[in-house]
């Protein structure tokens, strides 16, 4: 193949893309759709359920304060600290629950795998940025809140190429 034909071929393959829809996701306006409600773990079968590993969800009525999540995190990121909570629960006599520092968390989900009481899951919330370091530390009360996440865009593949819509 000659140099001229090669360059024309290369140019042509680029020009063809003028007709193709843009692939870019317009992020703050569009947000991706995820599988399920986030990463969860079923201790009975020992297998997790697929989902996004985002901010944690803590169920106060299940947490016993056993510290297994904190122990699992010790070798990874040391992001989980057990703190006192004001209200007491029947199953949680010591009244301690995990508090998670998202400045340290690596979102590996090993704490969710460690929880034998269905108390700690991960949710689809991934927008956790904060102006202060303290703002990244989520208390048990904050972790209890179910996030409202906009999910309106997914990958579409058709004859005109792939795009987000």
């Amino acid at each position: 193949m000659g140099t001229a034909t090669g360059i024309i071929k290369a140019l042509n393959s680029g020009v063809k893309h003028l007709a193709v829809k843009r692939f870019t996701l317009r992020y703050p306006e569009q947000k991706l759709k995820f599988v399920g409600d986030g990463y969860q773990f079923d201790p009975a079968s020992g297998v997790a359920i697929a989902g996004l590993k985002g901010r944690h969800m803590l169920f106060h009525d299940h947490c016993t304060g056993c510290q297994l999540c904190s122990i699992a995190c010790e070798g990874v990121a040391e992001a989980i600290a057990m703190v006192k909570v004001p209200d007491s629960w029947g199953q949680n006599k010591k009244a301690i629950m995990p508090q998670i520092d998202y400045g340290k968390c690596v979102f590996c989900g090993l704490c969710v795998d460690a929880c034998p009481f269905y108390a700690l899951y991960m949710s689809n919330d991934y927008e956790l940025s904060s102006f202060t370091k303290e703002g990244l530390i989520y208390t048990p009360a904050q972790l209890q809140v179910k996030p409202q996440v906009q999910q309106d865009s997914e990958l579409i593949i058709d004859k005109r190429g792939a795009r987000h819509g």
Partner: protein
Amino acid sequence: MAEVIPTKEMPPGLQVENVDDRIMTLNVGPQHPGSGHMRIIVKIDGDYIVDADPDPGYVHRGEEKMAESRNYITNIPHLERPVIHDSCNILYPYVLGVEDLVGIEVPERAKYVRVIAAELNRCIYIQYWLAIYGIFLGHSTMFMWPAGDRELFIDLMEKISGARVTHAYFVPGGVRNDVPANFEDVCLRQVNYFEKRIKEYGDIFYDNPILKARTEDTGVLSREDAIRLGTTGSVLRASGVDYDVRVKEPYDVYDELDVHTNVLKAGDSYARSKVPWLDMLESCNIIRQALEKMPKSGSIRTKLKPNPKGGLDEVYRRVESGRGAAGCYIVSKEKPEPYRLKLSVGSFRNLIALPYLLKGEKLGNMPAVYWSLNYWPVEADR
């Protein structure tokens, strides 16, 4: 090092010894955008490189030492850090090794899921590598296209594992969670489209006469030298050596799949940059085969004890990562933590060829030669 590196013929008239201030020493990196997190000390005579000394170690994190104080499960998020784009493949030898130490069997379906995840990850890594290779050579379209198409596979990995880059998906005994419902259809659709897209790279990049003029006959590594220097992966295959761990020492279910090794004979920068692209096409084939042969249901994880221990034993397993053979050596002394863990990675082995390849090249060809080695600075430092 001196006797390891074979001698190479230099262009005539070049001065190797510094006699009358003709030789200039130039530090490329560690902040140079073209070097990554490393430094190459090059000595140049005019426009020609007469000596090159790579200086890695700027991002050394001591992952191997850290592994000695963590148990076999909490090591998982750490050991994938050296190559976050290829995290499944860098974790693969470790997981296989721990399975041998602890003595557990992996369910059949988990083996297929692992192969699919590993091949998806290989494509994600190569796309990222190719994007950087494109921008190194001033071809900005080749930066945009792979960086965009990489999203197709990142999306698939996000659906499987829940994370976009550091998946922490493989565990000793299988994988952490099953693939979501109707994953097979979505994966097949995206793989087929991806394959169509990467074939278009041929027209704009690999058959482009400008790229060929830039990379052909630069940094030629002969077959004998490639073997003698101990290179691996795409660098070795570009020099005409038919070697792929997936074929030679098949692990998991690679022996049941039809894996074709891409070998080119030229051994120059062009061949080295083309082999990963051919590998991506091969990965698409492997994923399609694995999706077809995968058992439709079944267990995906053999349950481990909470704190698994190995016996008085040692194990070495290796896999084919995006950059070549990646090995993991584990010594166990009846404790929940490994006594010693050593990663043997493709990046570091390929880096050894760099001083040899750069000698006698023009300085302008340095990025084309350097990044064609399929090198990832963080992985070499570990």
